[in-house]
């Protein structure tokens, strides 16, 4: 049975009805976008129109849109692919400059390159909000600009919602001719995102976080960059990402991207106001709760609230709220289902005990005042109870 209050839109958010319509229409149509006959041409036209729509929504040229299976694949393609191609062009380029607050799709790809491909990883310092400062990047690059393969920094953090100064960071790297990748999975639809203005070489986004279907995402990729592919095959998507395109998903993704960016100003205003109400009511119920991330509304995602509850175990809180019909998350989801202290908070210098008792409340386009009120009523007793269970 579904719970009555859903605060995990950063994990996945309901599809827009318009995207569902686009997708169901396309599901009834046959055609491989790589085929040369009429059915193929029709499918190809749907894909190319989607590519144009998506590019327009995100300030990218259509030719810069590379469809992938989602955010994880786009992150891996950017990080590994750019590392391999940059190193192939100059064997000295083995240094990767990365923020330590990245999503695991970046973090683990970077670590894999260090373990298996001779990459030297340098984790950039972050402030207490998890933000990388351009001066810190400049300092790291200037030590030896010639050996840097790439820079990877997320646009906005998926756990604590901190917005990173991606344009400034990309500008620093660009001075030295170094490509920058940004994971913008959480930023799209919540912040103004223009690939053209960003100065980025590559940008990751995914459909199911912005009202589109699962299983489809994109890497926006500057024309001058040719990452080594992860998937070899039919040569689709500029030869960078082979595989038959999922036409219905591509079309619905484009619909969702168009709507999410069109509606972004209202979303930021309305959902931001709900988020502010949530923060106020949680603080009223639990005065000792610590809001993590940047308290300045301009410095964080409008739909994100992330708290530490001192003396509580995050999984205790999750269970208690779940039993009261409230869905939320302790951080980012993990395959084994075991809650770990947040690597983001640890990187930002938080007390390890505070990093264990965290909850992320992420809102979305279906969030309501009634949901926030349900949480306001439940959070106080849940925290009191979880505190009595203590830290195991």
């Amino acid at each position, binding site marked *: 049975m579904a719970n009555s209050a859903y605060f995990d839109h950063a994990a996945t958010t309901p599809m827009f009805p318009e995207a569902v319509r686009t997708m169901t229409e396309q599901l009834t149509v046959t055609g491989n976008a790589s085929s040369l006959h009429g059915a193929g041409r029709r499918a190809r036209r749907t894909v190319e129109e989607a590519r144009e729509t998506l590019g327009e929504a995100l300030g990218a040229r259509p030719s810069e849109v590379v469809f992938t299976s989602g955010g994880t694949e786009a992150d891996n393609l950017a990080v590994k692919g750019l590392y391999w191609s940059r190193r192939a062009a100059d064997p000295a380029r083995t240094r990767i400059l990365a923020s330590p607050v990245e999503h695991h799709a970046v973090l683990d790809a970077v670590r894999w390159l260090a373990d298996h491909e001779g990459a030297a990883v340098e984790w950039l310092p972050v402030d207490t909000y998890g933000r990388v400062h351009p001066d810190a990047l400049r300092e790291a690059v200037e030590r030896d600009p010639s050996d840097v393969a790439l820079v990877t920094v997320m646009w906005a953090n998926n756990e604590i919602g901190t917005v990173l100064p991606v344009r400034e960071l990309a500008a620093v790297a660009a001075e030295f001719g170094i490509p920058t990748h940004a994971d913008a999975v959480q930023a799209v639809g919540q912040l103004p995102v223009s690939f053209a203005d960003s100065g980025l070489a590559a940008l990751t986004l995914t459909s199911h976080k912005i009202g589109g279907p699962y299983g489809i995402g994109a890497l926006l990729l500057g024309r001058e960059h040719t990452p080594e592919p992860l998937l070899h095959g039919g040569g689709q998507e500029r030869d960078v990402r082979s595989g038959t395109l999922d036409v219905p998903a591509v079309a619905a993704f484009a619909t969702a991207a168009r709507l999410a960016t069109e509606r972004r100003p209202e979303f930021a205003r309305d959902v931001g106001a709900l988020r502010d109400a949530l923060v106020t009511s949680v603080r009223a119920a639990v005065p000792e709760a610590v809001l993590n991330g940047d308290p300045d509304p301009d410095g964080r995602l409008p739909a994100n609230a992330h708290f530490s509850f001192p003396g509580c175990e995050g*999984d*205790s809180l*999750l*269970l*208690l709220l*779940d*039993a009261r019909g409230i869905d939320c998350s302790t951080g980012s989801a993990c*395959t*084994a*289902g*075991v*809650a*770990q202290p947040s690597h983001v908070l640890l990187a930002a210098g938080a007390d390890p005990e505070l990093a264990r008792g965290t909850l992320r409340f992420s809102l979305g386009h279906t969030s309501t005042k009634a949901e926030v009120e349900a949480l306001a009523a439940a959070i106080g007793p849940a925290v009191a*109870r*979880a505190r*009595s*269970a*203590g830290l*195991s």
Partner: protein
Amino acid sequence: MTATPPSIPEATAPRLRVLAAMSGGVDSAVAAARAAEAGHDVTGVHLALSANPKSFRTGARGCCTVEDAHDARRAADVIGIPFYVWDLAERFREDVVEDFFAEYEAGRTPNPCLRCNEKIKFAALLDKALALGFDAVCTGHYATVVRRADGGRELHRASDMAKDQSYVLGVLDERQLAHAMFPLGDTLTTKDEIRAEAERRGLAVAEKPDSHDICFIADGDTRGFLAKRLGSAEGDILDESGARVGTHEGAHGFTIGQRKGLRIGHPAPDGRPRYVLDISPVENTVTVGPAESLDVSALSAVRPRWCGAPPRGAGTYTAQLRAHGGETEVTAEPVGDGRELRVRFAEPVRGVAPGQAVVLYDGTRVVGSATIASTERARPLPTAAE
């Protein structure tokens, strides 16, 4: 002594909030299903007991793999209860795995399942469950909790003696029992019937093999696991006269009563099989001898835990000395201000290993338990002069 006193079966208890510990095996899945069917408000939880699950057993056996967590999750889906994975790896390492090493290092043979029940399932887990508002922890153990008319609790053997697991629960006190639920204990059900019930309930774990070995030893090689941590130090294997009959690679690799794996090249003079009689970690020696030298007439045990008030003075009981072991008639008496337990056997018993638990029963009822510290031989070791 009498068997079961007048009792109210747990099944008539009101609707409770129950936390079901689900290992991923068939027993705990059926137990959780029965608790839910009885009308309780059940939540499933799988305990992640290894910090690095992949380092543990990867097959279908054991209780700590990612696959086991998956099986438990799917069982909870089918039963229709919420499910979580709780990370108790740090507590498990401290309280069970480290204790396991320390016991072997001291020449004893620990029972980590007992330890896990005492320290993890009915301590760390139970305490957390109670704090979070649950009334009871439910497991797939075969044992019976009886509520007396006066509200007190008793632990009894399972209805099916062949599957009884009251021995590994003998460490639980009355408070722990008051919050324990063993839905499999009170029915005469063969394992095949439990499997059939799992099948009928649509639980995919119905065909999963039983786990027998120690869950945190991935390949079942206890000696190798111990050697990796405790190292190997060559020492002597002696016979009862003190004569050297072979060498070993670490005294911690042995258990009292062990016959296999002694790797003594030449046979005993009388040609009869030899058993481990004694382990001396300080001298790093292992003493071997004939089966009758394993006979023990009494033992002394420490850390007694009583289910209810400790008995005053000596009493006659039946005792169980190892998991899946038989019963033996004993006289037992708390001594040393109740810190120790003296147990004398009516007839000598064979192969009693320090470190194992002695569990005392009055009929089917568990009276208490203690950890065996030392034994008294029925037949003293002959001295070298003899």
